[in-house]
């Protein structure tokens, strides 16, 4: 059976599916129970599965993540929510010091099958701390996986894979496109493997790597340059860590050019890593300098300034042309 859902609805359906199949799956966080989440990602979970399995907590991110560590050690599969990725920092110590390390510290005795979900990214005209893209902060930590979907189909399949994964996964959801479009997806549970990128469109002249809310903007930009005869290959990275390196290495070997587009600041971002890998693995195939188009190395501006911060389709299109005409 298929149904037509937005990303946020797909997230909700993934949680519903998994809670139904596996009573070890427990969902909790701030406002996730009675209200069903500030974005409604967890709506009806409490009604369907009861207060024991979907519940509200006191306002304390470190405790939300820290108790999830304990629950995972004790045989459950907690899926906890950080209300916004910008509020995950009180839990930073738990994530870095314990979530990421428990398997290695105990030499395999305790793995942590847990998921930390959070909406991330800008473009929703929000207050301070509600717009950041901090995937790079987490992606460098050995021992955790960082996943970012860009479509309803992927959101559901990747979240189900994350919940079933024996290791901890940070699942960052692009809130700018939570309700931007709908897609027909299967009603039943399905998995999309973590650590695998997706080629959204094949092309010959340039490889463009993006993830999350930047993917539809890249697609718009590519439409613009196609009119000028440029053929672009678009790769949705989907998992930031561990990264599917072969996806863009193979693509660059074909196109000779690469552009990475992300919302997060430029310096020491995920784009820097992708370009380093391209330099190491596909250097002799390059026909133009590997390029990043990203947010600025600034604090994310308040709503009156955010249109300047996130690379627009027009700016992406201009950058593609510059690289191809290098």
């Amino acid at each position: 059976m298929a149904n037509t859902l937005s990303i946020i609805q797909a997230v909700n359906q993934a949680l519903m599916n998994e809670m139904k199949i596996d009573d070890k799956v427990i969902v909790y966080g701030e406002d996730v129970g009675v209200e069903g989440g500030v974005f409604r990602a967890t709506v009806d979970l409490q009604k369907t599965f009861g207060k024991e399995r979907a519940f509200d907590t006191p306002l304390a991110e470190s405790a939300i993540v820290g108790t999830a560590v304990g629950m995972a050690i004790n045989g459950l599969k907690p899926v906890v929510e950080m209300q916004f990725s910008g509020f995950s920092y009180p839990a930073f110590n738990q994530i870095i010091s314990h979530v990421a390390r428990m398997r290695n510290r105990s030499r395999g005795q305790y793995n942590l099958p847990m998921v930390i979900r959070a909406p991330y990214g800008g473009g929703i005209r929000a207050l301070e701390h509600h717009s950041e893209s901090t995937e790079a902060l987490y992606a460098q930590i050995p021992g955790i996986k960082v996943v970012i979907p860009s479509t309803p189909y992927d959101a559901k399949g990747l979240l189900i894979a994350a919940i079933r994964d024996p290791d901890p996964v940070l699942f960052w959801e692009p809130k700018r496109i939570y309700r931007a479009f709908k897609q027909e997806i299967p009603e039943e549970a399905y998995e999309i493997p973590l650590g695998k990128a997706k080629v959204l469109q094949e092309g010959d002249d340039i490889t463009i790597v993006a993830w999350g809310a930047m993917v539809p903007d890249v697609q718009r930009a590519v439409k613009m340059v196609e009119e000028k005869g440029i053929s672009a290959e678009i790769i949705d990275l989907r998992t930031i860590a561990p990264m599917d390196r072969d996806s863009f290495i193979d693509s660059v070997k074909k196109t000779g050019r690469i552009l990475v587009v992300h919302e997060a600041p430029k310096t020491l971002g995920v784009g820097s890593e992708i370009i380093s890998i391209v330099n190491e693995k596909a250097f002799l195939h390059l026909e133009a300098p590997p390029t990043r188009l990203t947010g600025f190395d600034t604090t994310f501006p308040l709503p009156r300034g955010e249109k300047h911060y996130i690379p627009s389709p027009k700016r992406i299109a201009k950058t593609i042309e510059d690289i191809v005409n290098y």
Partner: protein
Amino acid sequence: MRLEDYNPMNNEMYQVMDPMGKVEDKEEIPELDDEQLKYLYRTMLYTRTIDEKALSYQRQGRMLTYAPNLGQEAAQVGSAYSLDDEDWLVPAFRELGAWLVRGVPLKNIYLYWYGNEWGSHMPEGVKVLPVSVPIASQLQHATGIGMANNIKNEKNVVLTYVGDGGTSHGDFHEALNFASVFKSPVVFIVQNNQYAISTSRKVQTLSENIAMKATAYGMPGVLVDGNDIFAMYNATKAAVDRARNGEGPTLIEAYTYRLGAHTTSDDPTKYRDDAEVDEWRKKDPILRFGEYLKENNVIDEDWIESTKKELEEEVKKTFEAIEDKSDTELEDIFKYHFETMPAQLQEQLDEYRSFLEGGK
């Protein structure tokens, strides 16, 4: 004072056995037979022997940094002895006596301090989490383990430890608050040994005692003479029973003293007087318990001497079995980050291995 009447707001300390080993209120003596009493005393001696030997190995350059437990043996052994087989122990890093009671082999303990992660991999059935270095962060795990017990309808309880310095941490507050709100079956032991490295307990909090903080979380709190093994056992046992009955968490402040350094990298003479240390030596938990046991004809000097000798042999043998034979296997550094090693990690391992083998 009886435990059931206890109120931390009165700032009194629960004690059964005084520093001379005398018990005034016989009703408060726990129901333990001679073999159990001997086991407890032996474990305290074992703890001290392990510490003393480790310190001497460290001075000889044979052991790395080590955090001694000298003076805190009753707080650790007495509390952990109140658990049942299926219960969990979530330590900080200065809980040697509790580890031994819960079945952690000395080999593991020395291996950890010797610098090998396998020390934290417990034998099957030993429900003791690895050492947690980030202060107070482990309390959250204890609360979560207990919350999972409630969800799974399991009756085992969680005993967890933190120091007096740890009570200043946000994680201390969050863990106690969550445990109370979710009626998590946890017993929180604060080993108040008066110092967080060099910082005096008086600087951590202006609260008259730490146990009274429990009141604001809506849970019982008990200030216990941490050098009195009977008081520690009774207070923890009552809290463990309470947790097992579904009545939620308890906070216990074990009032004790760190006779040694914070770790072997620390010089306590810089921040405290000899006179203060000498005062606390008189309250040594092993002396006190020994006096009681001799007075009651459970043990005698000969038993103590032969036990000490036996323990010293055991400790020596265990250390020598790991010394110089415990370097990390290269692959182990990489192997335990994920169930399946990611390609980039495998590549890093392969490249390094080929360098070691002479390079291709």
